[in-house]
């Protein structure tokens, strides 16, 4: 770079573009709502201002207001009709293509020539003297990829090329060029010009310096009146460039105008720059350009060649910006969901572990009223991995109570609930990792024929694998006996298990205690040592908490077959399932945050004030029983039973020993489990009080999970 540089080629610092994110947002909505596939060019407005920082150039900026308002749109936030001192409006044109191929295929030289032609025409017609911003006319081509929220774009700032190029006779800071008085006077005049709303956004102007050192600023249209003062005349422009040895791009076409219209070959120009909003004569430059362009420049018909495509880091490449972070609805939904939870953690629960929640894989057995509601609550807590298992189809009566379904799911015989629920969860929150498994749960007391045996065994294995691959299991089926096998498998695998069951106006929500064997033991290999380890105790020496079957005197039987029709058609009050489901999920969240996890002791509301208050989420009960008719709720603790048909050590070790054979026998022989656990004996001796917690059942009997 030449310094002081008398006689060297005058080099201009190219205009730099800056596109506000708001411009792309607005272009997207314009494209979607109004333009469609219309590719016609659009008039846009760019904004620029004099450089206002000694180290940083100003840019030609596009804002959301740069685009025309949408049809029928409420008038936009800012008054876009007026540019201001910091936003001098410059006309531009946008070619937005429908495809990336179309973008690349645009004839860029031709487009540039078109715009240069307009500039030339505005110079020749005198229009540019009335509205000088026309000299900085620009061009933008773009392709808006609205599927990926990325925008490919390329700016051109057309400049008429003087050939041979102008040379520099002199260039120095205005303060060096002018006398102190002149500089002072010019500063005042410029600040005045920039202050008045009538002139603040007029980027080209004439400066006359009187013999009394008085500077006066005039519009280009006042040229005739000024031309006699030619020796004291400066051609001023708002210079976006900050460099000390180069004027900015807007001077190029200005020189063209001056040379072509006013026939000057030696042009004294002022690069007007500011610092912190005020004229700065140290940053502003005054220079003298010498032009020796050929005669053709004098002819209106001749259009000079033009340059101006913006380089991208020194290369002739388009730019690309990706805004998926602020435009992709899925990412927005995820961050909004996260925000709610993070806010909760920040404000109320600093110990809330969102990572545990989002990483916990939940298996929901049953996708009825309870399953739907539990799934929703889990998502609300930030659980992202949900598998729903059910073999039923969505019936007409379901959508009103089962919150994941709509009438559409019932048509044509109904979709599988598991499938419909998966779809629905993803519609509610696309970032959820939901999966639906259509499968029946083998049940004791429901004998199977020899032919069906393989299917049942296959189902058992699938269920076993599903439980193994999840972290928490919810038992939400509508019959008692369908909970037996999952309870056993969970006790065997030591998985967090939560049960919710409904009566007509009462509910039970509980977490199962740990299984009878230490989880460190491998089920198949360490059978003998298991036998020694088996106990009713948890690892702290306390008693194991019971499972759903522990408190039952009666082992699960075929509750459907043995009931009267009336009992089969048990319905529940609609408010029950949402209450129970919510409690079930809250129970899981509490359990996940408890340092002892599945081994945590049961706490009850009455034991308040002891250790219960230590957990930020509150107490961690074992069972919650509630009644809507009484509008009451209580917490209970029930320990594991030695003769439990699902979780006692006899049953679990029998399962470990015999595996599927054992399951088959339990399925086929109604009294096998009771005999095995001694329950048969117990029942004979006791006619105990029995609290009847009916399982949820629906009017249409096909709701029951059957084999």
């Amino acid at each position, binding site marked *: *770079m030449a310094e002081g540089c008398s006689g060297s*080629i*005058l*080099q*201009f*610092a*190219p205009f*730099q*573009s*800056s*596109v*506000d*994110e*708001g411009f792309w*947002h607005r272009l997207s909505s314009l494209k979607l709502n109004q333009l469609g596939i219309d590719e016609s060019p659009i008039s846009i407005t760019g904004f620029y201002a004099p450089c206002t920082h000694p*180290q*940083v*150039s100003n*840019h030609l*900026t*596009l804002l*959301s207001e740069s685009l025309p308002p949408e049809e029928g749109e*409420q*008038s936009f*936030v*800012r*008054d876009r009709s007026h540019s201001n001192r910091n936003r001098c409006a410059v006309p531009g044109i946008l070619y937005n293509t429908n495809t990336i191929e179309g973008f690349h295929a645009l004839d*860029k*030289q031709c487009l540039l020539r078109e715009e240069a032609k307009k500039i030339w025409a505005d110079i020749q017609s005198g229009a540019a003297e009335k509205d000088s911003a026309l000299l900085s006319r620009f061009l933008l081509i773009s392709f808006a990829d609205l599927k990926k929220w990325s925008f490919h774009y390329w700016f051109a700032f057309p*400049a008429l*090329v*003087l050939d041979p*190029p*102008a040379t520099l006779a002199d260039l120095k800071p205005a303060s060096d060029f002018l006398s102190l008085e002149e500089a002072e006077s010019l500063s005042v005049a410029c600040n005045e010009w920039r202050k008045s709303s009538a002139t603040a956004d007029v980027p080209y102007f004439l400066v006359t310096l009187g013999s009394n050192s008085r500077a006066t600023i005039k519009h280009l249209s006042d040229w005739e009146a000024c031309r006699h003062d030619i020796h004291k005349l400066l051609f001023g422009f708002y210079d976006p460039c900050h*460099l000390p040895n*180069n004027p900015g791009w807007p001077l*190029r076409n200005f020189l063209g105008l001056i040379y072509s219209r006013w026939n000057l070959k030696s042009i004294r120009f002022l690069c007007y720059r500011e*610092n*912190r*909003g005020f004229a700065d004569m140290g940053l502003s430059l005054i220079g003298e350009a010498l032009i020796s362009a050929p005669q053709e420049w004098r002819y209106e018909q001749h259009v000079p*060649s033009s*340059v*101006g495509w913006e380089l*991208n*880091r*020194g*290369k*002739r*490449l388009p*730019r690309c*910006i990706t805004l998926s*972070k*602020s435009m992709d609805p899925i990412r*927005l939904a995820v*961050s909004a969901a996260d*925000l709610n939870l*993070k*806010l909760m953690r*920040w*404000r109320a629960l600093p110990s809330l572990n969102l990572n545990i929640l989002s990483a916990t894989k939940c298996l929901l057995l049953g996708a009825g009223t309870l399953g739907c509601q539990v799934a929703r609550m889990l998502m609300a807590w930030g659980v992202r991995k949900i598998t729903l298992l059910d073999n039923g189809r969505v019936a007409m009566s379901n959508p009103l109570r089962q919150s994941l379904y709509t009438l559409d799911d019932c048509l044509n015989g109904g979709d599988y609930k598991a499938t419909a629920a998966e779809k629905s969860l993803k519609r509610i929150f696309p970032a959820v990792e939901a999966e639906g498994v259509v499968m029946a749960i083998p049940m004791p007391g429901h004998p199977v024929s020899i032919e069906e045996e393989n299917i049942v065994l296959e189902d058992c294995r699938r269920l076993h694998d599903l439980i193994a691959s999840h972290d928490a299991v919810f038992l939400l089926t509508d019959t008692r006996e369908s909970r037996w096998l999952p309870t056993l498998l969970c006790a065997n695998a030591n998985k967090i298990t939560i049960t919710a069951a409904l009566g007509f106006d009462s509910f039970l929500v509980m977490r199962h205690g740990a299984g009878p064997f230490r989880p460190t033991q491998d089920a198949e290999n360490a059978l003998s040592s298991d036998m020694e380890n088996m106990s009713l105790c948890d690892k702290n020496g306390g008693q194991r908490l019971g499972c759903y079957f522990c408190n039952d005197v009666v082992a699960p039987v075929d509750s459907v077959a043995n009931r009267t029709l009336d009992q089969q058609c048990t319905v529940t009050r609609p408010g029950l399932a949402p209450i129970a489901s919510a409690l079930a999920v809250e129970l899981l969240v509490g359990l996940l945050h408890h340092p002892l996890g599945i081994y945590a002791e049961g706490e009850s509301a009455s034991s308040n004030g002891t250790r219960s208050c230590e957990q930020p989420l509150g107490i961690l009960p074992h069972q919650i029983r509630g009644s809507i008719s009484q509008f009451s709720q209580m917490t209970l603790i029930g320990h594991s039973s030695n003769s439990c048909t699902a979780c006692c050590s006899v049953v679990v070790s029998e399962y470990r020993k015999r595996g599927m054979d054992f399951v088959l026998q339990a399925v086929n022989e109604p009294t096998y489990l009771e005999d095995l656990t001694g329950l048969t004996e117990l029942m004979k001796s006791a006619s105990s009080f029995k609290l009847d917690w009916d399982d949820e059942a629906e009017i249409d009997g096909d709701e029951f999970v059957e084999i």
Partner: protein
Amino acid sequence: MLSDATILDISSWDGTISPSEFIAAAHAFAEKWKLRCRGLPIWSWICCRKTPFISSHEVDGYLSLEKLCILRSDKMEDHGIDDAGKEGLNCSENEECTDSAVLVHESCLEVHYYDLHVVYSSSYRVPVIYFRGYRSDGQPLVMDDIEKDIPANSAKVLMESKWTFMTEQEHPYLKWPWYTLHPCGTNEFMRLLFLIDVSLLEDRVAAEQYLTSWLSVVGQVAGLKVPLQMVDSTPPLTTS
């Protein structure tokens, strides 16, 4: 002066301000800023016409300061364009790059710009800061970039404070996501601040002082340093 009309009573004060107090404070603040902080970018009141039928905004505008510059000397990492081949100027397409009047200049300065908006929250009845950062070509800065721009001592104040929670939310007027500090702790904080600082203002609190004190803390997140002249409660020398 506007601030005379907007005086708060500290004794029974819950740390919030009303919409009219906010509007008055915002204008007074911008005016004072212009007088006392010459040379800094100015705050302007952006007027937003109220949308009929949707009365979600009790205040028809917000305070805005744009293009706050932060210079970074370390040149940013490439936006995915291989910088190795600078010779790669592809001249085949036209004569353009033979134009000797074009200056080829690459700045070694990386500039980050910040826009700050102060919006009134009707739900929390406090001012809320919305801000964003971007590079010179308009490319938005992500949270990591922004955190790197915050001076260490400011970061400590902001990140450890229980009442500043940086997040991204839809700008209430512009309708696309901006960074913000969640307002739900603001009133609590402001109340405490003024209880401690009550001597400074005797027993009355000017809403404009509220805005200044608040902004001198939250503004740090977007590189804003509120000059001491703003905090000084004596009237400015240059009165208009």
